[in-house]
């Protein structure tokens, strides 16, 4: 993956964030077992930092709750994202960061799929194929330089 140093989208639109999830009493009760829901998956990815701007993927409207689906029967998680501009060269890196964050945080039983919203990028098909090839994703995350960039994107302020 090539990384350019030029800013791709100089003046992005900033969107409002969703409210924090309100804790239910049952959330703290260890005797209650409930499935991971799409809001929880969304919470994992909405705080990912954009590689170019000091903004999160949610603030840039790259990810939204509607783009997240989870099937606890089939153990599948699907995330759709929307690059800010259709020729964004950072799209692969953003997708890789989403994927990395989910691989590192979700239980291993889930099969994760990450795709660009239909029509949101000129190289949609090629990028989707790369992002869902586990061999290429594994190799990319083993690459020290790329791994450092991804880690900067997925690091939370507490880290």
């Amino acid at each position, binding site marked *: 993956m090539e990384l350019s140093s030029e800013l791709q989208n100089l003046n992005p639109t900033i969107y409002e964030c969703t409210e924090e999830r309100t804790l239910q009493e049952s959330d703290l009760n260890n005797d209650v077992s409930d499935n991971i829901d799409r809001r929880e998956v969304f919470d994992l990815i909405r705080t990912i930092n954009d590689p170019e701007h000091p903004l999160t993927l949610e603030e840039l409207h790259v990810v939204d709750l509607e783009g997240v689906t989870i099937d606890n029967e*089939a153990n599948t998680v699907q995330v759709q994202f929307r690059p800010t501009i259709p020729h964004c060269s950072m799209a692969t890196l953003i997708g890789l960061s989403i994927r990395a964050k989910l691989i590192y945080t979700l239980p291993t039983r889930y099969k994760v799929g990450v795709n660009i919203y239909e029509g949101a990028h000129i190289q949609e098909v090629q990028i989707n*194929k790369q992002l869902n*090839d*586990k*061999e290429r994703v*594994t*190799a990319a995350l*083993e690459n020290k330089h790329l791994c450092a960039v991804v880690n900067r994107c997925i690091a939370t302020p507490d880290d």
Partner: protein
Amino acid sequence: MMGELIELQTLEASDDRVWCVAWNPTGTLLASCGSDKITKIWGREGERNWVCKSTLSDGHTRSIRSVAWSYCGNRIASAGFDAKVSIWERQGQEFVLQTTLEGHENEVKDVAFSHSGLYLATCGRDKSVWIWEYNEEENDFACAAVLTTHTQDVKHLKWHPHKDVLVSCSYDDTIKMFIEDNDDWSCVCSLDSHTSTVWSCDFDATGKRLVSCSDDKTVKIWHAYEKNNQEGIRSPNGVYPVWKCVCSISGYHKQPIYDVKWCPLTGLIATASGDNSIRIFREEESKQRDVPPSFSLIASNAHAHSQDVNRIAFNPKEPGLLASCSDDGTVKLWRIEQKLM
């Protein structure tokens, strides 16, 4: 005819993903490798128990994607994401690093010894397939050809069981075949029918049929039509057979199919998938001639592993003995039992 897939043993091979398993030609040793950058050799202790006999480390600095045995059984080759291919030679009970083949630009994804013992082939993300010729006097491998026919990374290699014909599978959705003619290696055919990455392929015992599996979640059976075939299918160059897809098996796997093997002893086909399952198919016997082959599922385990199954291997000597490996860090041994209904 039905069957059963019986789990014999689980080997805790690694704390990380296990990418590949491979039997030695006599079926007495099993090699495994993966993200922990180590190749392990497993052997029998007593009648049924498999244990780790030796560990090959220091060969790679990144994940080992694939491991292969030479047909004499004295050499192991491992392919790494560190762009290197390591050749290990047997010395007594141990395997010692003999040489490292460098040439690929980045990740090497597969390595395969030819049955003739003359060649070694490697492939990788740089879209190339390299053919290395073995020099017995110098006990070394020299590059004989770099084939750049594929337009995307090359995932898997397979040599024909009786001829020096090499088959490659790629991210460009195609399967290609290469032969040597007057010291020149060239692509003689391209099998284009899969709609996504072709992850693996295998010949049947005769070498006249090939099975392939893909990210498109299908398995395809290909048949070679020789020169002057009865069906009247013409070969474009008149010499090399034409390969046609004669059967497509779909609807069984929910995720990409990462490996397929055609057992030379039993004729069974086994598939390994990202949906954690292993499935076993058997060809339906047909009374009529000239009808396309059909395959039926005779055994399966939807939860063969707790994560993706990356590779499977039929023991070359013991019919029905199958090894598998997974992202869950384990290697498993299975026995396929066929029984009449």
